[in-house]
């Protein structure tokens, strides 16, 4: 009985520390706004370019959903790639990594930063997706299915990006390395997200792809949890 209570308390401690780290990252971000500003600026630049080049009448009706879905995820992925990797790099650059290692276990640090990155990604999506649909005159028949795709793919993208950020934080050529190591790992997620977005825009509910996204998120979360110590601890 006491052992069970101990395990429960350790898990509660982990969750509490993860939330504390997420709150700490949010406070730092609200003070400095480096990640949010760079991500939003990048997203706005991409949207302007895409909108200027294509506009609401630049695409034929046939194949419009596929092209728009692919462009939307290109904008979201590259915008996220400018901000999400900063999770651990910032700790190393500002010299706070050692203190963070002392106050919380690696799994809690990773969970907290993945949570913050997920919130950041969803905030970008909330601003970018309606603007994208408006500027390109793109009608999404099943908005709820699109929300499910954005949440599942966003969580997966955040978990993988956070874990890889911990790996590359102490390597040389961090930003180039992050793109090289992240692209093949998130490619199946992005391809699934694009296929599901096409289905959502046509009014279908892509159950199979949504299940694949759930499985990917689960596998990534388990892998990151088990390997957190190897990636982050000294």
């Amino acid at each position, binding site marked *: 009985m006491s052992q069970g209570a101990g395990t429960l308390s350790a898990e509660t401690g982990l969750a509490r520390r993860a939330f504390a780290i997420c709150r700490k990252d949010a406070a730092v971000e609200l003070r400095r706004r480096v990640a949010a500003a760079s991500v939003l600026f990048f997203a706005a630049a991409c949207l302007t370019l895409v909108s200027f080049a294509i506009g609401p009448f630049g695409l034929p009706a046939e194949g419009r959903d596929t092209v728009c879905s692919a462009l939307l995820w290109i904008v979201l992925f590259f915008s996220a790639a400018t901000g999400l990797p900063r999770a651990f790099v910032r700790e190393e650059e500002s010299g706070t990594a050692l203190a963070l290692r002392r106050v919380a276990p690696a799994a809690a640090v990773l969970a907290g930063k993945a949570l913050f990155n997920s919130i950041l990604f969803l905030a970008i999506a909330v601003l970018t997706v309606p603007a994208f649909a408006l500027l390109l005159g793109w009608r999404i028949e099943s908005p709820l299915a699109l929300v499910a795709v954005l949440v599942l793919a966003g969580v997966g993208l955040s978990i993988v990006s956070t874990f890889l950020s911990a790996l*590359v934080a102490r390597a040389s050529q961090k930003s180039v390395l992050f793109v090289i190591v992240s692209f093949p790992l998130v490619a199946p997620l992005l391809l699934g997200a694009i*296929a599901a977005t096409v289905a959502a825009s046509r009014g279908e509910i892509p159950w199979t792809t949504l299940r694949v996204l759930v499985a990917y998120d689960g596998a990534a979360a388990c*892998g990151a949890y088990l390997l957190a110590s190897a990636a982050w601890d000294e």
Partner: protein
Amino acid sequence: MKFLKLLLLPGMAAMVASAFLWPAPAEGFLGESSRIVFFHVPCAWTATLAFLVAAGYSGAYLARGNPWHDDVAAAAVRLGVVFAVLALVTGSFFAKIMWGSYWNWDPRESSFLLLLFLYGAYLFLRSAIDDPTRRGRISAAYALFAGVLMPFLVFVAPRVTQSLHPQTVINPQGRILMDTPTKVVFFAGLAGFSAIFVWMLSLDARSSRLARLESA
């Protein structure tokens, strides 16, 4: 062990000769193009085996911290990348004959290309970290994490999308759809390529260990 290595030369020579002379070309394929299965599939299999070996030794390195396990994992990835390139090149020849172009962005072609990028990235990651202990631990963590997500590339993505690729050995019917001569040469090829991989892995890992001991 030395006898087995000596046996590999006539064994592989017999397998290559049989691949061109013994089984009849499979039905439903242009000309002799189906014979690529004796080289293309063993290359793809060996690449997958190499990446699984890398994941296994990476796990062992994280558990025990023995640098030899890191040497073997890195050597397995290097060889896996070589066999993956061979699988892509042989697959491209088949694609040119059957579908008219070397590259068609077929889901199976694309997923194998991404697999190549995945383990190419492992080698980039290793080269970007100077400290050997940190390099070993971070590379092992990446190899294991990649091992967790690899099934989505190799098994899930090609099966949830339409593919032109012929049915694989692991198919929905759960049967190997080959006649006896084809099956014999095919499995001899798998065994031969796997044996070559094990031999090359041993040479590469031992040479890495020597380089490590010299620099220490």
